[in-house]
């Protein structure tokens, strides 16, 4: 197990190196005149040149990349060119906000998908048809449109939630709930549609297995068969989809945070990428890369815990 974890971590480091190199290259290819973008339309050319010099943008790209790498491995991700804030501070102050959205969405997806998927697979009938309909609707409605609709109905018309912004949990638990509920629902819709289908399919497959027939013939109640045996076998594929969704949710947060004006990683990612704030984008690449690597590792370990057949040694 330890060898497996070590190997996965090493792969993760190589992956991070590849991602950052690729990211840096892309950013430089499409970066344009960064100093001009920082200073805007009023600055004269001499000031723009001075700014470029101040940021070290007049150096060869390889030198700049080497400089970034040498600082990054020591934990120094630099300073945002567009706000002057240290990149580590920018990420750490926003990471928890995005994680609270993504974690909330993952929990919502897991709970609703498992309940609905199992019910659809075991009861069939109208529950199954509802699950199928949800899958179509969930995939058909674009995430941002759903988010805007939620704001319109539940925040602006009914006034139950705040339409924009974010209140930390420690500042006000109710304020926090009022600001994260709609974004979490908006983030979760697509995931619920997909994972419900995955759980439903896996449970139907598992129910057709011989061991289920054997368990039933022994007189074990159907509920126990499903909850203790079938679900455990069906959980593997669902977990794999959930892992993929976690990565997808980080991307989805970009749009949702923009619509709800939430100060998370997604919002800053949009701004930094549009502006060409290379230190901040690179820091975000590192942070999200690490998150994805750790989450995938945890999912692999959970798969082994749930199903000994895929346990890794």
């Amino acid at each position: 197990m330890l060898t497996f974890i070590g190997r996965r971590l090493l792969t993760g480091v190589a992956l991070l190196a590849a991602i950052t190199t690729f990211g840096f290259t892309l950013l430089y290819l499409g970066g344009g005149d960064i100093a001009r973008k920082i200073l805007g339309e009023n600055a004269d050319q001499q000031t723009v040149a001075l700014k470029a010099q101040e940021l070290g943008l007049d150096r060869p790209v390889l030198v700049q990349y080497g400089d970034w790498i040498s600082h990054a491995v020591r934990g120094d991700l630099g300073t945002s060119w567009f706000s002057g804030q240290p990149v580590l501070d920018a990420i750490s102050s926003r990471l928890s906000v995005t994680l609270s959205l993504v974690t909330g969405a993952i929990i919502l997806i897991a709970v609703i998908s498992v309940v609905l998927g199992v019910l659809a697979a075991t009861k069939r009938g109208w529950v199954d048809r509802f699950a199928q309909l949800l899958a179509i609707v969930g995939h058909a409605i674009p995430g941002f449109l759903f988010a805007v609709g939620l704001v319109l109905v539940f925040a602006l018309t009914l006034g139950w939630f705040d339409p924009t912004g974010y209140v930390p949990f420690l500042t006000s638990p109710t304020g926090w709930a009022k600001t994260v509920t709609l974004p979490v629902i908006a983030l979760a819709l697509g995931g619920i549609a997909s994972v419900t289908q995955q759980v439903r399919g896996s449970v139907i497959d598992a129910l057709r297995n011989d061991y289920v027939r054997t368990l039933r013939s022994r007189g074990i109640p159907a509920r126990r068969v499903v909850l203790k045996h079938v679900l455990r076998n069906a959980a593997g594929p669902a977990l794999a989809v959930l892992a993929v969704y976690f990565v997808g949710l980080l991307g989805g947060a970009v749009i949702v945070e923009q619509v709800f004006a939430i100060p998370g990683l997604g919002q800053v990612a949009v701004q930094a990428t549009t502006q060409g704030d290379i230190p901040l984008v690179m820091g975000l690449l590192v942070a999200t890369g690490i998150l994805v690597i750790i989450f995938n590792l945890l999912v692999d370990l959970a798969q082994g815990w749930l199903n000994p057949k895929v346990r890794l040694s």
Partner: protein
Amino acid sequence: MRFTKAGLAVTLTAGLALTGCASGSGSSTSQTSKTITLGNILAPTTFEARNMNWGNQSVYAQAVYDGLLKPAPNGKDVQPSLATKWEYNTDKTVLTMTLRDGVVFSDGTPFTAEVAAQNLLRFRDGTSPQKSKVADLAEAKAKDKTTLEITLKRANPAFLINLAQAAGLQESPAAFGKADAQTNPVGSGPYTLNTSQTVVGTSYKFEKNPKYWDANSVKYDTLTVNVYTDATSELNALRGKQLDAAAVADNSILPQVEAAGFRSSGQNLNFAGLLLFDRAGKSNPALGNVKVRQAINYAVDAAAMLKVVGLGRGEATGQVFRPESPAYEATLNSTYKFDPDKARKLLADAGYASGLELTLPTSPGFPKALWPLLQQQLGDVGIKVKYVDTGTNTIADLQAQKYGLSYFTLQRDVNDWQLISTMIAPNATWNTFKYQDPNVDALLATIRTGNDADSAAALKKLNEYIVDQAWFAPWYSPTNYFVTNAGTSVELNQGNVWPNLWNIAPKA
């Protein structure tokens, strides 16, 4: 096993809650007279006084810093601030200012003439986008604790108003060069930035400065400025009553904002139209021919542009100067009244009877409705328009002289010399091809050094000349809106998109 899974659920729930414990944007606002939440479309690129910008970022600067002078709401005159008196010598190259005594920065450091001199020179040598406005500053020296002497390389009619904007901001010398100077400002202004409750780039929270020398001018105990880069989220925040006042990001949301009970105050701040940079015909010989430039002016229906591109919010104009300027002449607005036949004739007279091709940059930041309309109208008179998508690099490409003309909106400063320095003078940032004309140079010399009457006459001649020579093809002046709720009053600052902070107040 059951315990383990239950524990997992508890852990996940607690984790979710804990991940929500970070500092946030504090979206909800308390509608008391002591708290105000403002919406802005830009975050400050820095809080370091020497590098600060103005315009949309002026609200942040005015919260934490004092200027040597204050801009009057008419955008032209200046009022006392840290400088209480000032006077020029006869040739207007030496400015002597008497500074307020007893002012301290929020870190306790006293404000003196020596500090003011250091701040001015740091601004001149910094990288603020406004830096060119103090290009004429030769020296700043403290004569004594409260007397500052500023020497200019040559007279500059905009120097005082510049000192009331970014160039005059005063930062504590103890903060000079500090590692956190860009995000933790130390000024003597009416507020201090609460860094622990600020989310850089998204939400800025300011607390009243208890040491402020002009406590009566501070209207609120706390001030929050939220940043909305997306018009929809700004609209939602306004409709959800999360903001008390805001600079409107996009005029298309205005009807809904007004329907939500907000009062809008507007000013025609900019002008929109074509900037015909290449008046010498370096990139395209056709543009060097005044008849071609005039034909471009005649070919475009400015009223249609205002209606379609400007959503009807603004006023048609044919000149770059503002109506309150001595340069302004109402009759000039009809110089190039829409006349495609005249445009065709001018093109034929210029030797382009069979037409010509012009290349214009497009940008995601420009209004989309513009492109087909412009292409069609210029095409009607025989000018084939080729568009090149410059992405987010438009300004850099324009400054690099890659395009001889472009659509753009430029700010029309109230101070005529500021406007001239931005778009007309040979070294002006928006005279991208650095075009120089002896007639214009002579008029600029008079405007720079002449008395009020001579200067006003020269301004009028200058405006007539550049309209006749078709340096620009202005179409309309779009209205910029600032909206306030029922409990907030505002007096706009002419020439700036944001009102002066002290002119936003609880309604009596």
